[in-house]
């Protein structure tokens, strides 16, 4: 019995129209991502990894093709609907952490809930629990400026979990970190995977890909290789 697919992509294309000429960033992708899976997306620079992740994260719309997230066709949603999807179903982790400087750790973790209309006072304990989960119990009142890169990325991980998303998307989450801090973050991601979360991570780093169950290689906007580790899953497909 195949696991339920939370992402279905059919002939997904993205064309950037620069007026004088067009850039075909994605030239027709087809794949599914199952619930609870851990996928790494790799490929040379300019192969379309970030473009793909932005579309998966509903930050951008495909030029053509289908993108089904959960049960919804998100390829044709308007900006407001996409914002809603981002806020409620997707957890983002960025290379440059992207915390909000004015807010402290707990407030940063709360941000996605804020745009769901949920009051921080009602969800304070939940946010604190997430901060504890990523090992920042004693930093609740700190501003991003007062934290190290690794700590900031932990806050970002906690923030990505606060809205109980369908999946976590990360674009080079360890790109700015040294190798020991990278290991810590990857350990946390492993832990999340162990809890049954769905992870999609764009990376250049083999050490990251190592931990994933599946590696999709992109090349020139097309899937070059789609490698699943472990026979059981390969059969399932």
């Amino acid at each position, binding site marked *: 019995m195949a696991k339920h697919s939370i992402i279905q992509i059919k002939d997904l294309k993205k064309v950037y129209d620069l007026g004088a000429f067009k850039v075909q960033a994605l030239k027709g992708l087809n794949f599914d991502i199952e619930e609870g899976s851990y996928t790494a997306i790799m490929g040379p620079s300019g192969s379309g990894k970030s473009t793909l992740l932005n579309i998966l994260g509903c930050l951008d719309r495909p030029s053509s093709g289908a993108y089904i997230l959960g049960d919804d066709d998100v390829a044709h949603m308007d900006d407001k609907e996409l*914002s809603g999807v981002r806020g409620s179903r997707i957890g983002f982790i960025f290379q440059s952490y992207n915390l*909000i400087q004015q807010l402290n750790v707990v407030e940063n973790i709360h941000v*996605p809930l804020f*745009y769901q209309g949920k009051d921080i006072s009602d969800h304070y304990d939940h946010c604190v629990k997430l901060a504890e989960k990523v090992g920042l119990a004693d930093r609740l009142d700190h501003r991003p400026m007062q934290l190290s890169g690794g700590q900031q990325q932990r806050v970002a991980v906690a923030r990505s979990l606060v809205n109980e998303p369908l999946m976590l998307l990360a674009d080079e989450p360890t790109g700015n970190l040294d190798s020991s801090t990278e290991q810590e973050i990857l350990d946390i991601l492993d832990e999340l995977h162990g809890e049954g979360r769905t992870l999609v991570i764009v990376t250049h780093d083999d050490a990251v890909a190592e931990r994933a169950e599946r590696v999709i290689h992109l090349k020139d906007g097309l899937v070059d290789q789609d490698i699943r580790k472990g026979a059981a899953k390969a059969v399932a497909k």
Partner: protein
Amino acid sequence: MRGSSLIQIVQVGFKSLRLHKLRSGLTMLGMIIGVWAVIVLVAIGEGASHDAQEAIKALGAQNVIIRSVKPMSDKVQLQGRDMEWETIYGLKNSDASRISKTVPGVIKVLPVLTQRKNIIHGKRDVDCQLIGTYPYYPEFTQSKMVAGTFLNEIEEARKENSCVLTLELAEKLFAGHNPLMEKVVIRGFESAQVFRVKGIIQERVEGAKLPQQKDVLGRTISANVFIPLSTFKALFGIKNIDRSVGSLSVERVELSEIRVEFGSAEEVMEALPLLREALDKTRRGNVDYEIQVPINELNALKAQKARDTRMLMYIACISLLVGGIGIMNIMLATVTERTQEIGVRRAMGATQRDITVQFLIETLILCLLGGSIGVCGGWGFAWVRHHLLHTTTIVTEWSVLAAFGLSVTVGLVFGLYPARRAALLDPIEALRHA
């Protein structure tokens, strides 16, 4: 907008503004000065106009005041004497009685005769304005008695030597002693007479047009002495002698003023042509009087004030416009600076509307905070000017509301563009912004 999150947006707004205290402060400064200026300028204008209106109102909206005016180059040289002139001009008793008989709507006519004299008590000798008039002067001029009583009909009929002093004069002359029933000497050019003080009066404004004397606090002194008109004519006559630069001029003026009271302000306007006709009947082209119509002056003053206020509003609008452009400039810079934050918020589920509202609220906070400080500053300034500097300054409700309204409007108008620009940023571009 969800209620509780609005509070949070405001809180976040304050946090963002606190991040750049100096910049926020400077941005607000434009707003502060603009609002301060509106409040203060309106308050000063209002105060000045209030004073002028009070003065005119004191003359009575249903009254007309006719004054004797020396006609131009109408001197008559006294026979045989060099450098001595005599002029006969002005209002007559007959004018007063003709007005009360022929002009419709007239309720009362009050004749007033004024000359400059000195009043002496003990060692004190004070310049004063001697006023001969009828017993109903206080009601007519809305003056009130502070002590004693005003002149009465009997004193008028018997030409008695009774006088009433203004409060300021009494204080000056008697320095704390009770002046009632005391004797004073009124000295003119030709004669000096003893009078008995029978009352102290406080006038709403000066009864006559003396060059105003002021005390240390800048209040006007009305050094007026009232005596019965009949006494005035009997003791001092209508001859007023004025010695100046080597020449002697004698003026004969029967009445300095005739005050006419009508039933209403409307009747004043209707009766004015007939009043002129009655006065001109006995005059051959000689204009030796002027008519003051307080209601006309009041209306002119109000029209002038409306014009001034409009002018002020234009200036205020321009200054707030300049402030608004400053705010827009800063907000645009802020949006650019916080592009990445906008991208993050969008990725976390913020809609374009959420972003618009956030930046609009930040602009509004700046404007309202600036506006409030401006209002407080203006109010404080007005208070100091009014209470400590004793210059009438009236902060009007509408100027405060207008200042607030304008600052909110400026915030909305000039905040909307930067806020929309923030909202319309492409989330991906914004996120990539370093």
